[in-house]
């Protein structure tokens, strides 16, 4: 057996392989996150290059997004997730009820199934640890992280590109799945992750949160602060999780409430143009209470 340890947002997890299967899966995106072995892990995922009997699977929720879908349910008491790409089953994740142990069944050890399994395990295992895996594009500017939220197709990545192009000193932290963690001292820190959607940007970096900006397409560029309740709604929409498990929902609610109360959160009506980035940057980087 071979074990590899990774650290994302200061949470360590382990990937176990039998060591002799033909791992065609490319682990390059995880390399910046490799860390020393430890017993103190948030979860372990075992790679099983076999099939699993799905006869006893009961479906709870189907989540679809841009040709990918996750069928969540359970096999007996054990939570189970099927990962589909263009309607083809790529892998099946089966977890322990506390989400500390998981097995990913993927005969061909394909990257899609394993990446999804690791992301889901990470989100579930850290839901109660003031940690949230976001759907967001995030940049750094003058030592702070600026996160852009919005429904699929709103232009989160596009808005990051505009900052990179027109605002000097901006760098991309992650384009799709950054992690935000609220530490015990109240510090809100944004972390890069090994998952970044279609953009290969897997940076093991962290920055204190500057601001979170909810984007909406509009014919002009207008920015305003979000009310706490609007901020909460925006966060709920942007954070992955299994909210129909009450314990996990309670954990996410705590994180979202803390962010809605303490983070600098904004709404930006915007065009995909230079002015949008400049209006946004000027307002949120000055008034983020930094």
């Amino acid at each position, binding site marked *: 057996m071979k074990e590899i340890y990774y650290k994302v947002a200061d949470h360590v997890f382990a990937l176990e392989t039998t060591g002799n299967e033909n791992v065609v899966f490319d682990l390059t995106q995880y390399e910046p996150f490799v860390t020393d072995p430890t017993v103190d892990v948030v979860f372990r995922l075992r790679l099983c290059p076999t099939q699993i009997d799905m006869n006893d699977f009961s479906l*709870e*929720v189907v*989540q679809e997004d841009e040709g990918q879908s996750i069928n969540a349910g359970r096999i007996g008491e054990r939570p189970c997730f099927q990962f589909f790409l263009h309607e083809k089953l790529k892998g099946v994740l089966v977890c322990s009820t506390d989400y500390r142990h998981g097995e990913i069944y993927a005969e061909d050890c394909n990257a899609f199934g394993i990446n999804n399994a690791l992301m889901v395990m990470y989100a579930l295992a850290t839901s109660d640890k003031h940690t949230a895996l976001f759907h967001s594009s995030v940049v750094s500017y003058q030592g702070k992280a600026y996160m852009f939220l919005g429904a699929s197709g709103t232009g989160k990545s596009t808005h990051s590109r505009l900052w990179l192009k027109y605002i000097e000193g901006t760098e991309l932290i992650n384009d799709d799945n950054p992690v935000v963690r609220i530490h015990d001292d109240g510090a809100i820190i944004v972390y890069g992750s090994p998952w970044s959607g279609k953009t290969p940007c897997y940076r093991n970096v962290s920055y204190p949160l500057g601001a979170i900006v909810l984007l909406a397409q509009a014919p002009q560029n207008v920015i305003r602060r979000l009310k*706490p*309740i609007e901020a*909460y*709604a925006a966060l*709920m*929409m942007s954070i992955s999780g299994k*909210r*129909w498990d*009450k314990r996990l*929902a309670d954990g996410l*609610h705590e994180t*979202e*409430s803390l962010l*809605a*109360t303490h983070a600098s959160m904004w709404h930006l009506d915007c065009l995909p143009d230079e002015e949008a980035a400049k209006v946004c940057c000027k307002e949120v980087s000055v008034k983020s209470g930094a």
Partner: protein
Amino acid sequence: MRLKKGFVLREVCSEKVIVGEGAETVDFGKMISLNDTAAMLWKTAEELGDFTVDELADALTEVYEVNREQALSDVQKLTEGWKEAGLAE
């Protein structure tokens, strides 16, 4: 009447809201704000399971200085709103 499964009363920055957190409601996609009275009645309805307008009106008159007629009318309006929003059936 009963509250549909999967809706949860949450307190966010001292405001009370109903959010969809069940397997049936994760895609509800909106939040419904409740004032303190409505939140109290929501909790009562949750405890009762199957409930009637009469029962909630009882709860209302026990806690607030309101006559029965007014209570019935308020609860009627509130629960109609819940039904329209898809929170109750």
